[in-house]
């Protein structure tokens, strides 16, 4: 029997695969394609205290091996999410990770506190890494002191485990990870998008109205794998790895690098069945590679190495 389930703080997952925040809305669109019970967990779109209308369009642009987006955290706000989106998700036996964003510490704290009280919220994903908004977001994600302060404040009020979603746009990702771990984070999500740009040759201007956008997709996978590999050796808390996952082999690669579970973003746009297909393929690949229990490979990339060095 191939064992696919993984247990992370607050998240008892049937398999290590969840859709990534912002790439799955609040699940309704994808429920028309498949049963969301199939998923290991669901990370929903970022929620802010008040409704946000996001950035002007164009909001996306394609680049080689990936895409840029600058949605700008458009969302219906805490109240609407609490009243309409989360209740709809109750019918699924799949843990929900709510992505929380804000401008100031108070915003985050307010949203985290309220949302963590809701029955079907299994964990919070603190979004300190959105590159597409002027305030908050990336400011917290690129300063370890601010990130730690925010984490501490949210931890103090949250009824559920808190995962911090890290930005790759930093000189020292290990320092960031250690800072939020020390501040009480229960887990890490990494990576969010790299800040990128595309210029339209006809207009001479950036394609994306916001000018810069977040780069996601296969193009960023090597950076993500490297960061997961480095951070997983430096912290004790589990990592939800993401960035460019499009195949079951990508999932195995992230877990060997040190992730305890993974999230799938851009791939959902290429194929709405991406997540269930990946889960099925993962099981097949595990059989081919003689991996019985998925948890056995977590960190294999450095664990066996350390072993061979010490022996």
């Amino acid at each position, binding site marked *: 029997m191939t064992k696919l389930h993984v247990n992370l703080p607050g998240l008892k997952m049937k398999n290590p695969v969840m859709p990534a925040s912002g*790439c799955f809305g609040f699940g309704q*669109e994808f429920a028309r394609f498949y049963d969301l019970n199939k998923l290991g967990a669901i990370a929903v779109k970022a929620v802010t205290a008040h409704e946000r209308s996001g950035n002007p369009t164009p*909001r996306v642009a394609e680049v080689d091996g990936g895409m840029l*987006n600058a949605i700008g955290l458009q969302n219906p706000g805490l109240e609407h999410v609490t009243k309409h989106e989360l209740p709809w998700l109750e019918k699924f036996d799949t843990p929900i990770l709510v992505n929380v964003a804000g401008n100031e510490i108070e915003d985050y704290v307010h949203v985290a506190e309220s949302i963590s009280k809701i029955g079907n919220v299994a964990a919070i994903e603190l979004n300190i890494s959105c590159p597409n908004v002027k305030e908050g977001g990336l400011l917290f994600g690129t300063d370890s002191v601010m990130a730690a302060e925010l984490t501490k404040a949210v931890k103090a009020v949250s009824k559920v485990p808190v995962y911090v979603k890290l930005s790759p746009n930093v000189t020292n990702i290990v320092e960031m990870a250690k800072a939020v771990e020390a501040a009480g984070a229960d887990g890490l999500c990494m990576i969010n998008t790299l800040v990128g740009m595309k210029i339209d040759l006809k207009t001479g201007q950036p394609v994306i109205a916001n000018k810069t956008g977040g780069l996601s997709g296969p193009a960023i996978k090597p950076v993500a794998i490297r960061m997961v590999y480095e951070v997983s050796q430096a912290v004790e808390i589990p990592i939800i790895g993401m960035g460019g996952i499009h195949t079951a082999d990508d999932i195995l690669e992230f877990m060997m690098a040190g992730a305890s579970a993974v999230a799938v973003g851009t791939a959902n746009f290429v*194929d709405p069945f991406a997540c269930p297909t990946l889960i099925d393929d993962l099981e097949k690949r595990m059989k081919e590679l003689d991996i019985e229990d998925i948890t056995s490979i977590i960190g294999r990339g450095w664990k066996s190495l350390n072993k061979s060095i010490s022996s």
Partner: protein
Amino acid sequence: MIVDKLEIVKQEELAPKIFEMTLTGNSVNEMVTPGQFLHVKVADGIDPLLRRPISICNVDIDQKKLSIIYRVEGKGTKRLSERIPGEKVDILGPLGQGFPIDQLIQGNTALLVGGGVGIPPLYYLAKLLVAKGIKVKTIIGFRTEKDIFLEKKFAKLSDVTITTEDGSRGTKGFVTTAMEEQKNSYDVFYTCGPTPMLRAVQLAATSTGYVSLEERMGCGIGACLACVCDVNEPAEGEKKYRKICCDGPVFEAGEVVI
């Protein structure tokens, strides 16, 4: 709404850079609303990565065939134009809300106004309107004579006016120039084309009507919020935006800001 692999039956260059691709498969019988679109994965693998939205141009349910007409713009449509009969194309569709026609009654007149690659979705619309006993007038605009496509097919169904920017054929100018002549002669209009054209058509129109919009898309199914546009006068407590991929691409004229 399904994901399917449709087989290419035919690939033809109608005009410079304008291709018509005919596809077949069982799922074609679900793709019968004019104005809906397909989200097309032009090639396997990551180059290019995202799907491309292309309108359904014509459907033949009996033969399980449909066609799309597209212009080679960049990498994706280029790659699509290189695909050959016998190969399969991964499509997601039909997507979005098409052109409403149920409100029309026999004897009504509909004005169809299209520009460039906004013209294709109007063709299947014209077919269904005619089948319903609606009189159809069509104004289709191009840059120059050699860019013209679908003229003959439209001529079989409707009164066609061609406009070209350089006057090399038909009315010289834009589609709106030709709309002058049709003033007050129609009960509804349907339009699809570049955004500046849509704005002008909406302004020039003397009836209610429907506009089909374009925007860069991520998912195509309403999940990523890449393709939003603003509602013109949102009612208190109602959503202030619409998603072009699933609430559109067709909107009632005036409903959204274009």
